[in-house]
């Protein structure tokens, strides 16, 4: 039944988006530390703007913007001899060959394309948040560590990859786990992007059914469906909390932080 597979859609989105967003965030944070100032400015502006504007506005914006951007690029490449303007009044017209996905493509490709756009949008928005967290974590790495690395004659690149990056994670984790919770809670917005997710099906199936149209007539059940979703998300959050606290314990091991110190003492005492 579509309602149950839509839970799979949500989980799949989380599984694909989280690493991608982390990648965006890492790139933005590394960029904001760059000595080359256009890269630095670009990453800082990216992080500042996305944080300052409601994320739902970005979800609505990027889906159309990315779609049009891709079609425009394909249009430039595939149809060089098209002489009419692309924006005609209120219409956005590209040649048929540049349409994404192709009009003739089967339904499943349209769905995959929509899903991919949603993933990219989520990654762009949450990448900015992750970038903020990771940038803060880079700053939190004790200065002595960097000085020691320099004293050993490491180059800037070596210091960054061998000293900063491995130590940064323990400082970034509280922020990142918070972000994971936020990401979970942002998934129902998928519904707005046209992906048929849990919210769509809850609305659809819960709505009033009359005997004329279906075999299972019932009144307005949407309240119960949404209550079910509420419980689903609560359980998911709880499970994530438990898993994340385990990871935190693991990462604090052997680090020069209060948590790591407490674990060392506890180990020595036992």
């Amino acid at each position, binding site marked *: 039944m579509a309602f149950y597979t839509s839970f799979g859609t949500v989980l799949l989105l989380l599984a694909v988006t989280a690493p991608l967003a982390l990648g965006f965030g890492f790139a933005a944070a590394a960029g904001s530390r760059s000595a080359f100032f256009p890269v630095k400015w670009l990453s800082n502006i990216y992080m500042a703007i996305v944080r300052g*504007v409601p994320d739902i506005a970005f979800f*609505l914006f990027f889906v159309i913007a990315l779609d049009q951007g891709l079609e425009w690029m394909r249009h430039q490449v595939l149809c060089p001899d098209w002489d009419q303007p692309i924006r005609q009044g*209120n219409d956005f017209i590209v040649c048929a060959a540049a349409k994404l996905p192709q009009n003739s493509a089967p339904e499943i490709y349209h769905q995959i394309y929509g899903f991919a756009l949603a993933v990219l949008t989520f990654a762009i928005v949450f990448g900015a948040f992750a970038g903020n967290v990771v940038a803060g974590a880079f700053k939190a790495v004790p200065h002595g560590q960097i000085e020691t690395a320099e004293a050993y004659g490491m180059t800037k690149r070596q210091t960054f990859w061998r000293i900063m990056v491995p130590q940064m994670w323990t400082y970034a984790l509280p922020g990142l786990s918070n972000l994971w919770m936020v990401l979970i809670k942002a998934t129902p917005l998928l519904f707005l992007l046209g992906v048929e997710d849990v919210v769509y099906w809850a609305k659809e199936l819960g709505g009033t059914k009359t005997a004329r149209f279906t075999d299972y007539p019932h009144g307005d059940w*949407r309240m119960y469906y949404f209550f079910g979703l509420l419980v689903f998300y609560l359980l998911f959050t709880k499970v994530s909390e438990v898993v994340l606290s385990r990871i935190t314990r693991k990462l604090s091991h052997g680090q020069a932080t209060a948590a790591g110190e407490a674990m060392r003492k506890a180990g020595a005492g036992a």
Partner: protein
Amino acid sequence: MSCSETIASYAFRSLGFGERRLPTTDITLCDQVTLIGSGMLWNIYFGLLAILFGFFSAQAIALAKASSNKAIRKPAEWFIFVFRGSPLFIQFFFGYFLFLSLKQAFPLFGNLTDAWLGAAIVLWLNTTAYSAEIFFGALMAVPKGDLESADAYGFSGWPRFRRIVWPTMLRLAWPAYTNEAIFIFHSTTLVFFSGFPALQQKGDALYYASYFADKTFNPFIPYPILAGYFVLVTLCIITIFGLIGKRLNRHLPQGRIKRPRLMSQIFR
């Protein structure tokens, strides 16, 4: 239609005054700026209401969570868990359909399905839970020395809370609470995209922005306008909360006020 005419007919369109029909053809930049700005009135209304009521209820819940009495502590913990653990979007949907069934059972609750009341209640409960967690964290972070000094001076009960604990708690919570205020303003955009209907096209800023994006099929104009408005609101919040924060910190040696690092990480 000139721009001043547009402003005259659409400035309060979101509240139901002025021209009934939204512009459908020949949409100018002025139309978009005016209507999206008109929608911002709703965002500001929801945000202010939630912050105003949430500020007080959140402290009550935070104190309840810090209580040593289990019968008071447990409900507060559950309240915070439910509202922080589930998406606001689902809360809006569930709230709307709950209000809908309430309305059908008891006509007395007729207004609950209207956005101005129902959505405001959901937002209020939501921000209460988030702020309560912030205030609870701050309450736990009140320095031990302050409490011991208060005891030594003979403070106890209500005066101790009012004069010693409460100001410190507020001071510690303030940076995180500023964040929460910004986020609740951002969340107000969800109202008309969940169950709550925009009757007679009286919607908020995002409602009009997406209306224009649909009509012109060009997202590059309405959404940046919306973003501009929200950046303005965010700057206002930062300024006002910054001034309050400065007042809360005025007894400390200026120049080296330490911002609690952990608290700034608690955001949505």
